[in-house]
């Protein structure tokens, strides 16, 4: 065995994670929805846990007030809960915005006020605006966090519109 093969062997053995999955040790990539020319994939970027998400009625003409299903274990109390969305297309940032979901003076959803440790299953509307997605591939970073900026959920999503 020459030294080049030995080096290759060592390299393969020492990096098993890079051979199987494309993203190394991260959580698996899931499909949130597919159909109507639109595909949405996501991967949890919270090192502690994965979560489940599915979006009803996938279409490149996104309808108003979509219904989703969402399941997660809470790592924090969510008396106050905020969502940050960052949309990137072709390497440049398109939109950044922050939206309150649960606040002391306006708990918008019935799950507001749940405690650390509880599991949440939410099936219902998300109160979004309708829009038509132009063809292309988009990267979306979604983050749910509480008033101490502690992560409740984090998702790296890819939206492919063909």
């Amino acid at each position: 065995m020459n030294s080049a093969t030995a080096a290759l062997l060592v390299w393969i053995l020492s990096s098993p994670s890079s051979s199987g999955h494309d993203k190394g040790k991260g959580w698996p990539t899931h499909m949130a929805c597919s159909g109507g020319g639109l595909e949405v994939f996501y991967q949890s970027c919270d090192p502690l846990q994965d979560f489940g998400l599915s979006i009803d009625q996938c279409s490149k003409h996104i309808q108003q007030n979509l219904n989703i299903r969402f399941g997660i274990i809470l790592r924090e109390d969510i008396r106050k809960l905020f969502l940050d969305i960052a949309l990137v297309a072709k390497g440049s940032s398109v939109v950044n915005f922050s939206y309150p979901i649960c606040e002391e003076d306006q708990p918008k959803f019935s799950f507001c006020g749940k405690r650390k440790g509880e599991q949440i299953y939410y099936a219902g509307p998300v109160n979004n605006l309708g829009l038509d997605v132009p063809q292309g591939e988009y990267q979306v970073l979604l983050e749910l966090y509480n008033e101490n900026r502690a992560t409740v959920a984090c998702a790296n999503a890819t939206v492919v519109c063909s």
Partner: protein
Amino acid sequence: MAPDTGCFFLVALFSASCQVITSSDQMCIEKEANKTYNCENLGLSEIPGTLPNSTKCLEFSFNFLPTIQNTTFSRLVNLSFLDLTRCQIYWIHEDTFQSQHQLDTLVLTANPLIFVAETALNGPKALKHLFFIQTGISSLDFIPGHNLKHLESLHLGSNHISSIKLPKDFPAEKLKVLDFQNNAIHYLSTEDVGSLQLATDLNLNLCGNDITGIEPGAFKSTVFQSLNFGGTLKLLGIFQGLRNSTVESLWLGTFEDIDDGDELSSAMFEGLCEMSVESINLQKHHFLDISSNTFHCFTGLRELDLTATHLKELPAGIVGLRKLKKLVLSANKFENLCQISAANFPSLTHLSIKGNTKRLDLGTGCLEYLENLRELDLSHDDIETSDCCNLQLKNLSHLQNLNMSYNEPLGLRSEAFKECPQLELLDLAFTRLRVNAPQSPFQNLHLLKVLNLSHCFLDTSNQQLLNGLPALRHLNLQGNHFPNGNIQRTNLLQTLGSLEILILSLCDLSSIDQQAFLSLKTMSHVDLSQNKLTSSSIEALGHLKGLHLNLASNHISVIPANLLPILSQQSTINLRQNPLDCTCSNIYFIEWYKENLQKLEDEEDTLCANPPLLRGVRLSEVTLSCGITAVGIFLLIVVLLLFAVLVIFAVKYFLRWKYQHI
């Protein structure tokens, strides 16, 4: 040899950072020495041996304890707070907490409990807070009640409970909070409510239970601090059931994910005429049709919250709200402020209309009947006006707090708040202000104490901008820019003689004149973080003592010796994230730093940037030896001696050569 040094280095490293307790591969975080430890998410199946016996607060959630029994915690006799959230606990056996006499709070949220032994909770002398959220229980009998005489709060959310009835002999005398959120309770009988009789001033939470009926008279002559029926659709039944009760605060709001129930009508509120309520929340409901008669049973009410109730206007001549003190109309759809018909609420002291979903036009004198108004919140409303705010806030002569932050550009002229001379707090953050040069918009606000002008795009070259604020204590100018990044000797702060707190972070400042703050004599807190200041700007603080001084994220590298006395006379200093110099040219500061560690904040983030060898090292850990060392002196002497010998030989040779050629 090499591995040995490596081990030694590792040991030294761990002993240096004593905040971390190591136990093979798991580490609990010490939050307070010998008292508070966080062992979350470590997959532990027992209490680590490294935790001291004196531990008082233990956060142990997301570990693995299928069975807990009398040996599990026996060593930790001082425990007062124990969080066992989602530890996969199935069994709680006899006398589990027998030695925890001081246990005050026990969190068992999200454990799939199969059985809790009769004596499991014996031991604690005064257990006050108990969390049994999402433990799969369907009956309160599951919780052994005989050692709960001191219980103040019981959290039973997200279970399968269908009745609020407390078991016979369940001690409720001290109970203040009883939380049944998201259970399966659909009906409240007289017997159910009667079982709570012993508790006084109870806060009962039934949010997320679809209550469809209450037995008539069930709440007769009961007194509650608060009652929450959030998400309940049959409000008519609730109001009828609550007849003859007394409730301080009644929360009846609904949510976006709950299907619309009955639309609110005046007939629905009839029951209110026969009960006593101080405050009601009806968020996210739809009103069928608001007439002047809709609220006629609200006469005793002090606070009404109509957040996001899809309102476009309120009719004039509403009966029943003349005594109302606090009204929340946030997140509605008004187009003009006059559409709230403020004359309906002459006693109002607090009014909140924030986050209106349409651009809100303030109109003229729309609030002029609210003579008693003390607090007004008009933030996040897209308000835009070229001449604010005397016409808009006409006759609000008692107003103390005004929030107009997060709006569209406002044009302000001199004495823009003349109609509100009693203002004590004014928040205009993130609202662009248009003020023409010599104007003083805040003139004559003699009582104003707090002024937030962060990110207002101010014209800071206007020296008169902040004139007429003799009582101002707290000024936030974050995110405003100064000409050339410099605060000059004459500047807009000079008239603020009472200022105590000044925030100038993110102002893109690169220098401050030595005499810029000279007229500010009573300051206690100065925030200059996130600018481009160098150490020379510290001179501007020479006349101030006992400051909390934040200089984080600036361009400070060397602080010369003559500036150190200025730092010495302050009480707290933050120098985090500065490119600090750790060479001999900064030796005086480094020595001063190590002698004054008790004054320094965020010491763990105060690092060297130079020389490259010390980059990222904490300033407190740097040891420099500057000046001449022993080796240096020795070498110098040797060199001098050699030189002398050389000179002597040269002279000798020269003389010899000269004599030979005479």
